[in-house]
């Protein structure tokens, strides 16, 4: 009897945890969409803010956000995956590996404002990029590097020894084995890492305010012009409207767009991951 009660209480508590979590998330998403959707119009999405007309538009912020996501991923993904492969597959010095793993775990958890400082000193000043989207993206690349390294490493470690032995036993060299068997089997973990990384990039404001600026002005569509321009991403714009203008209607609309954008990006990342897997596995 007591045993049974114990089971029931345990299960109820767990159910409660799941229900509260799911409820909170749904409420949050629902509330943001409810408050934000109304303010989203075609003009809101397709123009820049105009003081003359007194209209609000966030096209520059959308472009800037997409730019920052793509550039920071393009910089951090090869570097992070490469480092993870080296650390898990090649590095012989256990101490060195442990030290790097510990460092990257720590770096993944430190406040982003510290990355902002690094970005200002390294990219904006030392490399003379000034406050630009490129400087901001590169700073974010450093920030997401630990996340990508850790998730790639975890996923490499789950590839069964039997696959590796199978490949090596056929006379495959080590790098060939990694490229053709180990990496394709790890794509899921790498994609998960990217999704987490994109989440951090999209959610970041402090770093970008210091390294990429807060301009709401329309920039060119060309990549090189965007790189050299200073501009606000959606999150920075949200901050700007909520904090400086106390315009919560616009802030909520931006929040809704951020939500939708994140969902789209995550779905496309998983989709790309699956395609990539099919491609390498033939």
């Amino acid at each position, binding site marked *: 009897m007591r045993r049974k009660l114990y089971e029931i209480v345990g299960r109820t508590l767990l159910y409660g945890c799941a229900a509260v979590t799911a409820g909170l998330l749904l409420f949050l998403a629902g509330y943001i969409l409810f408050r934000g959707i109304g303010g989203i119009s075609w003009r809101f999405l397709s123009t820049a803010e105009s003081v003359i007309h007194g209209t609000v538009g966030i096209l520059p912020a959308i472009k800037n956000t997409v730019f920052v996501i793509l550039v920071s991923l393009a910089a951090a993904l090869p570097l992070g995956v490469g480092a993870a492969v080296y650390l898990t597959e090649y590095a012989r010095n256990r101490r060195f590996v442990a030290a790097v793993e510990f460092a990257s775990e720590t770096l993944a958890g430190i406040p982003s404002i510290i990355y902002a400082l690094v970005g200002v000193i390294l990219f904006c000043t030392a490399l003379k990029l000034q406050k630009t989207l490129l400087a901001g993206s590169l700073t974010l690349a450093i920030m997401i590097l630990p996340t990508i390294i850790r998730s790639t490493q975890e996923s490499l470690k789950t590839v*069964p020894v*039997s*696959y*590796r*032995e*199978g*490949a*090596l*036993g*056929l*006379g*495959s*060299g080590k790098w*060939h084995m990694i490229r*053709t*068997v180990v990496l*394709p*089997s790890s794509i899921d973990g790498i994609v998960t890492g990217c999704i987490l990384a994109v989440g951090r990039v999209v959610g970041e404001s402090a770093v970008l305010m210091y390294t990429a600026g807060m301009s709401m002005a329309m920039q060119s569509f060309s990549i090189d012009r965007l790189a050299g321009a200073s501009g606000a991403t959606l999150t920075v714009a949200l901050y700007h409207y909520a904090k400086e203008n106390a315009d919560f209607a616009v802030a909520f609309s931006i929040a809704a767009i951020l939500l939708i954008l994140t969902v789209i990006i995550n779905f496309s990342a998983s989709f790309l991951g699956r395609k990539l897997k099919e491609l390498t*596995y*033939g």
Partner: protein
Amino acid sequence: MAETILSARNLDFYYGETHALKDICLDIPEHNITALIGPSGCGKSTFLRTINRMNDLIEGVRVTGSLTYRGAEIYAPDRDVTELRKNIGMVFQKPNPFPMSIYDNVAYGPRTHGIRAKAKLDDIVERSLRDAAIWDEVKDRLKKNALGLSGGQQQRLCIARALAVKPDVLLMDESTSALDPISTSRIEDLAMELKKDYTIVIVTHNMQQAVRISDRTAFFLLGELIEFGDTEKMFSQPEDRRTEDYITGRFG
């Protein structure tokens, strides 16, 4: 007597402090099936894996003495290990097909060694699958994932995958121990068929299997080679008392 293809002389093997093979001297003849038997932990797998240098993957191992393949030292410092493994294929205990299509599994080796032409690959894949006696079962679903096959089919696929690189020697480490009796007997038949073209070394726990398919048997105990000779003779009149105890089931 067929020509010797693999030859061990005073071969010792260490995992760190563990002395896993002690002073092994053994000549394996070509186009024969040689069975390695002995109780668990006696060093059968270790010996098998020294032959294709699969033990290189483990840290802290050490090999001394001589082990040659067609007269050339396997552990020579300038030995090309990938070339060696191409010549000496291996089938593992548990079937380990890659998580890709049946076709790509078999084509993996040839592609690794630079064969790209579709027609040539098609040809190799079909021939290897036929040689591994699994062609009829998979010919209509070559593009399907290999993990969907049954255990016995997966193991024959792994044999096909090994054959596709045209090895000279095939090492099989208890390759039927995870399979049902029907699959096991198919693979045994296959091994006897394959010895025309290949030299086969099998590790087996199963003495009936050694008797059924092998020409020669090596009995290992605690890292030592106790007895090596003609299978029929060894099972009818073992020379060493310990061999007799083992094959009559008195231990292990």
